């Protein structure tokens, strides 16, 4: 593939498209964006294959490209959203866009967990880049912490710590944005 062979790229696509797409959709929470980024990831892999030195596994390398593409995409999207908020100051019909209220249902979530997963995905988008990555890779992609550490180029201890902080922050975010759930649970327990 380093010599520009598209058939090798197709082979690699067949092998890794599902993991790349699943990771991307967890970040973007949108199928069209994930599809577009899926193509971009494999084009990047095709373009940079000659630089790959086998100092990590192919899977780690592809995950790394995927995570970088997804985070870049979110940064650009958030920058556009911030501009939108700024310009909305001059419009009467401005809406507060600080918390992403889009209803995303991950297609792989169990039926009984759909509603909870929807809240969780909204909360995940509030985490920092590192915490988000650790949470997605360990909880959704179900990768071992050691592999996540290699993808992120940090120690396994750092991954463990990031995961703890991510879970703790998710609890705070959920409580902050869904106080009605806290109230309803209290009423139900009485």
């Amino acid at each position: 593939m380093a010599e520009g062979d598209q058939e090798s790229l197709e082979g690699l696509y067949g092998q890794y498209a599902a993991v790349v797409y699943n990771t991307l959709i967890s970040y973007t929470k949108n199928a069209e964006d994930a599809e577009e980024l899926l193509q971009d990831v494999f084009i990047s892999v095709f373009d940079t294959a000659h630089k790959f030195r086998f100092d990590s596994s192919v899977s780690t390398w592809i995950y790394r490209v995927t995570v970088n593409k997804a985070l870049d995409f979110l940064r650009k999207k958030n920058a556009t959203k911030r501009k939108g908020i700024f310009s909305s100051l001059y419009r009467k019909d401005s809406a507060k866009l600080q918390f992403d209220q889009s209803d995303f249902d991950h297609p792989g979530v169990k039926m009984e967990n759909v509603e909870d997963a929807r809240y969780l995905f909204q909360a995940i988008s509030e985490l920092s880049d590192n915490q988000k990555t650790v949470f997605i890779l360990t909880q959704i992609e179900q990768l071992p912490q050691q592999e996540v550490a290699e993808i992120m180029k940090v120690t396994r201890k750092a991954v463990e710590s990031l995961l703890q902080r991510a879970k703790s922050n998710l609890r705070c975010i959920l409580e902050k944005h869904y106080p009605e759930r806290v109230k309803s649970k209290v009423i139900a327990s009485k």
Partner: protein
Amino acid sequence: MEEWKDKVIRSLSGIERAKPPTDGFEGIRRKLAARSRPNAEKGGQWMAVAAAILILVSSNALLLTNHSNKQQVVDTAEAYPEMITSFNIYDNEQ
């Protein structure tokens, strides 16, 4: 109270992978083909930009030339006022 939050955090357990579109590689093939195609469209764009610059420069040059010519005419008139005043037909009639 904490229970519902833990339940939400655990809601992804047993999650299955989302499936990519079946014709996903076609998009990649199209993008790669578009990239390697001889870029006639890009060449056309450069020609349009060059033409716009040329029109801008030549119109400005024309404007400057006209402006300096006009100034020269005015300067000549101011330099020889007696030549012009000597043709005052009303004075000659007196």
